[in-house]
């Protein structure tokens, strides 16, 4: 996993609520057996209409660019498919900002070096309007100090992250290494069970 410390980037606004994993990557693209290449089909059915690029969709609008996606409430609900996280990272996103994340998506994102930043609904609204009005605006995400800020504005908010997950992201570690290193504890647990 790639390390994550801080990121300064422009951001792409997607102010839709309840974006589910079927929108992020539709089921018909889940037939692959490796993790690569899912970015091509990220938001497939919003990006393309009748086989053509949908000019109204924000990813097809070159005014907006960057490695940060700012999305509406309850992002990533629905299926447990990690393909959603793979599609977002493969496309180039490093951070997703929303006022709420679905549990499984959040875990999947963190396991792939994609940082979900949960902000208050007010900050989300402000961020969306600033970015829409001025697409050149940079957003700063500082994982070490756990804050997100919008350059040239007063918008700044701290965000929560599990201390263990933060350590993993900052060092590029993952859970498998940790679990495997605890094998003796796991075996002792198995041996101690009575039912």
């Amino acid at each position, binding site marked *: 996993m790639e390390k994550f410390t801080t990121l300064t980037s422009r951001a792409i606004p997607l102010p839709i609520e*309840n974006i*589910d994993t079927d929108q992020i990557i539709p*089921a018909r693209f889940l037939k692959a057996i*490796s993790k690569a290449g899912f970015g091509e089909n990220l938001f497939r059915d919003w990006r393309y209409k009748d086989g053509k690029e949908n000019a109204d969709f924000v990813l097809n609008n070159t005014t907006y660019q960057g490695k940060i996606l700012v999305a509406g409430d309850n992002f990533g609900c629905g299926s*447990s*498919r990690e393909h959603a996280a793979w599609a977002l990272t493969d496309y180039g996103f490093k951070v997703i900002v929303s006022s709420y994340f679905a549990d499984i998506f959040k875990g999947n994102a963190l396991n792939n070096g994609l940082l979900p930043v949960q902000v208050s609904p007010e900050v989300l609204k402000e961020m969306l309007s600033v970015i829409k009005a001025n697409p050149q605006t940079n957003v700063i995400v500082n994982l070490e100090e756990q804050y997100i800020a919008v350059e040239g504005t007063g918008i700044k908010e701290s965000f929560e992250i599990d201390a263990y997950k933060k350590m993993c992201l900052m060092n590029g570690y993952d859970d*498998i290494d940790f679990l495997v290193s605890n094998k003796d504890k*796991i075996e002792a647990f198995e041996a101690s069970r009575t039912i």
Partner: protein
Amino acid sequence: MGKTLFDKVWDSHVVHQVENGPQILYIDKHLIHEVTSPQAFNELEERNIPLFRKEQIVATADHNVPTKDQHLPIQDLLSKKQVEMLTENCDKHGVTLYGLGHPYQGIVHVMAPELGITQPGMTMVCGDSHTSTHGAFGTIAFGIGTSQVAQVFASQCLLLSKPKSMRITVNGKLKKGVLPKDVILYIIAQLGTNSGTGYFVEYAGDVFENMTMEGRMTVCNMSIEMGARGGMIAPDETTFNYVKGREFAPKGEDFNKKVSYWKTLPTDADATFDKEYTFDAADIAPMVTYGTNPGMGIKITERIPSKDDVSFEKSLEYMGLQKGEKLLGKQINYVFIGSCTNSRIEDFRIAAEYIKGKQKAANVNALIVPGSQQVAQQIKEEGIQAVFEDAGFEMRQSGCSACLGMNEDKIPAGEYCVSTSNRNFEGRQGQGARTILASPLVAAATAIAGKIVDVTEEIKELELV
């Protein structure tokens, strides 16, 4: 202070508490399928890590399989490759597989309970969000991502922080024609799709106590649709009777020993929850959804609400519906009875009971997809298959089918489908498809009438649950 059912099961599976961090939670059973496992097997191989407890893993092929001519090679080459990959991986690593053609094959959440793999007090995971289904047995069961599938492969454990607890109590008696599916659709419509995020839910009260295991599974299945990681129902005699005698259930003295333990699991009277909701069974009616998330549901006789909100309007636009419109009487051309929510024997019995002696409307394509080979077999033996076929329904072989449309079973763009599945997301059943979630009874009645009808009016004379 007392402990909840969830606390008891969770706490007894904690291997280790990481200082200032998550816990290492032991997983008893790991179910896998073709779509979310190949990358996990790859990961292990790349890192040269062996499977830690292969005998605790069971595999099946369900998401990406055809429901016609399962004895023939799969036509779609990508699907074929994915299914073959599962077989190859299971062979290589010594994992039990109930693949296509096996008499135990089926949707993972239908297959495991009916084989007695799912048992009270266990921890279970699968790379599929509807793993919450197994909570019906008083099991902690939840969906995981592929990285976590690899973690369980490597260690039979996961690193997790303990979720908060919520109890949803429904007391009273359900009205005629109101099925478990309506209960859960009602709850989600009341609470919203992210009300459960960060929580594990326990369903309590008369309604769940009186439900069959099939009904409890339908309810727990959809816990994820309110954002909860999982849902649970305390094990009781109904649970023990269901598990008893099944293929992989404990036998004889062993079973009795387990039952004594299972009896200690229900929530203590003085236990507290982080959140509690209570509903009255009498308020629940047959439900239908009108939007593009499972929280957008109304009673079948109600009108679509009016809300000035961009996401809400976008959703109605996709559905081709208007604020204030009624769904009752709406013409429907597709009906799907299947998916891990409603493809168990009881679901088909209810549908068949209603359909018996009737004919489906000419405009309707009605697809019946049993959840497993065993259910398919039972349908045949009980004469239910004949009822469906005589009424003009199309019977298929088991799999996820039109629930997610990964195979050929898709609903055409712009068409409405009354579906017993669990998700009405945009494009879930095919690009542009418009899904209306409902119970198997509402689905059956829709197929007969060719439009949405109020089943409570319809079934007065029928002896139904």
